């Protein structure tokens, strides 16, 4: 499945020319009396992954300048968290990056457990990892669907959402809600898995492995139009990606093998075997391949979790009140979009003094301002598919 349509050597070397070489120099433009158009791809737009405003300066079809303006979905989550008790902040973290809810909860809970310095029972850790990897599947497959939707193909997204619906029904049976789970708690998880769930997850994962190619990937991968619209578009180099602080698939598609699950391991990831998926091309097609590869690795992790999960309690013995001592806690997880980190500062009371979320969508959005100039206007959409931001994430 992976790597069937890799570019050849000459094609790969032809891609290293930056897109800005296509831009006309400003003095040349003035000499000919040409002007640029200022356009606003506004917050109301069907394909902006949320409420994002892009201020574009166009020279015909070529983008000269692209400035993202964020803040249209800002809900003051970090400020509100200062007035809520520690357990009551968890449902709010659900709503940050609403395509990767489990990871947000996990990040916050890791930060608070760092503050409290408590030990989480192993069964709870395995359940957390299982839920997070299912969430990763439920996030990457629609990401690819959204990429195709913005390229103009309207069907892959519906096939993707069919898979996501299956994951969501598993989540509903386990946690009680389809999207805002509020399941990972400080000290463990809320409740144990219902007895029929491991069987259901096995069947889902095997079904996905068998049908993924025929149902979904075949519609996308070899498609010549898809290749010509995504190969060479949004070209990133390793230095630039590291300099901008990107994490997640945008970073790994350039070849840097950085994954929080391996480099700063948390939970039970050290006991599981999986690979970091990287690709060297650094363009939108490479990020597509990285996401497909990560789906396959997630399936591998889910199978290992289901086999290795121990019996036991799912919640640590904590008191009724969660009132940590003064100090700081830091937790970081590998969400489907990159590194999601939470910094909690406590002043000894029931509520945090400060909660700060380092959201991957917010940081990865820098890509738009740096990489888009020089590309054509229709190329903005695949580049947003490379970043795959979620508006709850960048705006909090």
């Amino acid at each position, binding site marked *: 499945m992976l790597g069937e349509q890799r570019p050849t050597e000459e094609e790969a070397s032809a891609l290293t020319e930056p897109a800005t070489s296509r831009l006309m120099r400003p003095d040349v433009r003035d000499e000919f009396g040409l002007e640029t158009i200022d356009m606003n791809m506004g917050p109301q737009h069907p394909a902006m992954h949320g409420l994002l405003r892009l201020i574009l300066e166009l020279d015909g079809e070529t983008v000269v300048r692209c400035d993202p303006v964020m803040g249209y979905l800002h809900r003051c989550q970090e400020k509100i968290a200062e007035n809520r008790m520690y357990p009551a902040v968890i449902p709010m973290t659900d709503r940050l990056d609403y395509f990767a809810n489990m990871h947000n909860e996990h990040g916050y809970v890791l930060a608070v457990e760092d503050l409290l310095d408590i030990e989480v029972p192993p069964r709870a850790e395995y359940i957390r990892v299982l839920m997070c990897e299912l969430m990763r599947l439920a996030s990457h497959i629609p990401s690819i669907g959204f990429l195709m939707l913005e390229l*103009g193909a309207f069907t892959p997204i519906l096939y993707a959402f069919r898979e996501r619906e299956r994951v969501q029904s598993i989540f509903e049976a386990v946690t009680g809600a389809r999207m805002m789970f509020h399941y990972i708690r400080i000290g463990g998880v809320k409740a144990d898995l219902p007895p029929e769930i491991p069987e259901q997850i096995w069947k889902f994962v095997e079904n996905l492995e068998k049908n993924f190619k025929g149902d979904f990937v075949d519609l996308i991968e070899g498609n010549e139009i898809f290749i010509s619209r995504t190969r060479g578009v949004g070209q990133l180099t390793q230095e630039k990606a590291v300099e901008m602080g990107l994490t997640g698939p945008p970073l790994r598609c350039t070849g840097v093998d950085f994954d929080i699950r391996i480099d700063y391991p948390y939970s039970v990831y050290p006991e599981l075997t999986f690979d970091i998926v990287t690709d060297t091309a650094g363009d939108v097609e490479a990020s597509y391949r990285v996401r497909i590869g990560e789906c396959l690795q997630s399936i591998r992790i889910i199978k290992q979790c289901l086999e290795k999960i121990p019996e036991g309690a799912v919640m640590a013995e904590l008191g009724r009140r969660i009132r940590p001592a003064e100090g700081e806690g830091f937790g970081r997880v590998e969400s489907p979009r990159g590194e999601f980190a939470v910094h909690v500062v406590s002043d000894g009371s029931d509520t945090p003094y400060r909660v700060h979320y380092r959201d991957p969508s917010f940081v990865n959005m820098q890509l738009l301002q740096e990489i888009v100039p020089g590309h054509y206007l229709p190329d903005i959409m695949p580049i947003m598919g490379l970043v795959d931001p979620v508006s709850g994430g960048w705006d909090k």
Partner: protein
Amino acid sequence: MGTVLQYLDQEPFRFLLSFGAVLFLVLNLAAVLTMAERKVSGYIQLRYGPNRVGPRGLLQPAADVFKLFTKENVSPGRSDLWVFLGAPIAMFLPAAAVWLVIPFSPDAVIANINVAILFFIAITSIGALGVVMAGYGSRSTFSLLGALRGAAQMISYEVPLILSLLGVVMLSGSLSFVDVVAAQGDTFWTWYFLPLLPMFLTFYVSGIAEVKRVPFDLPEGESEIVGGFMIEYSGMTWALIQAAEFASMGLMSAITATLFLGGWQPPLPFLDLGAFNWIWFGFKTALIMFTFQWIRWSIPRLRMDQLMDLGWKVLVPITLIYLLIVAAAMLILQEVF
């Protein structure tokens, strides 16, 4: 009865009746096509299309039309009103007018002119004008981009469209649709899509580009320039633009069927239905419309430079070279033709 028909066959009545018949056909076709499109898209996307209004959703177009009649026709404050309102008309009338020359059945053609192909080419070029009027009259950046893309695309793809028609003209020796259909014979291996296969495919692809459907719907570009040239239209003006789009889709299918698939000719002689051969014509047109829709819901759209590359660098050379091959073949194999 005979005298009534004879009376109606006289000039003013014949013209008015045929005009009315064409409008009736085209508008109903547009409405039915919207429904067919939504049902086909639904089934491809693993869902039912509209199935609430009427039995199995068949009254959905009626509900849509009713809604669009009652909606306000918004126009931007600084738009050029005459150009803005004239654009849907300029897009719809060409799509409707060419139906006058299409042969549905051996005697059923409303205007049997002997330069029908030329008429078709001339009138569809006006569609490009309609797109530019819509985009320019709206005075908005998105519509300007859509209009420029639309103009470039429609004008570029007329060249392969016309060149691929020349193959048909050479083989049949006439510019009239009626003659082309008659020359294709009533067996499917003598229809023109086999000897002229590259021409058929080029005409088909250029047809999709002329109608501005995915993968060539960049003028409308729903993901980047939301609506493109028709972004400022709503209510009945928008409905007229959509009707124009679906009518031209039907028109392209009908002309492809006429020129390359034998028009009203049955695939095998014993399946000839005499005066009811319009059933074969309808079947072929519906088949091509279905493939238009199938393609629309399967593949992404092309970017502007790729689209122009395809038109100028791939389709035009193919048609030119194949024209030479057909001419050479006709010269060498004179006894066959």
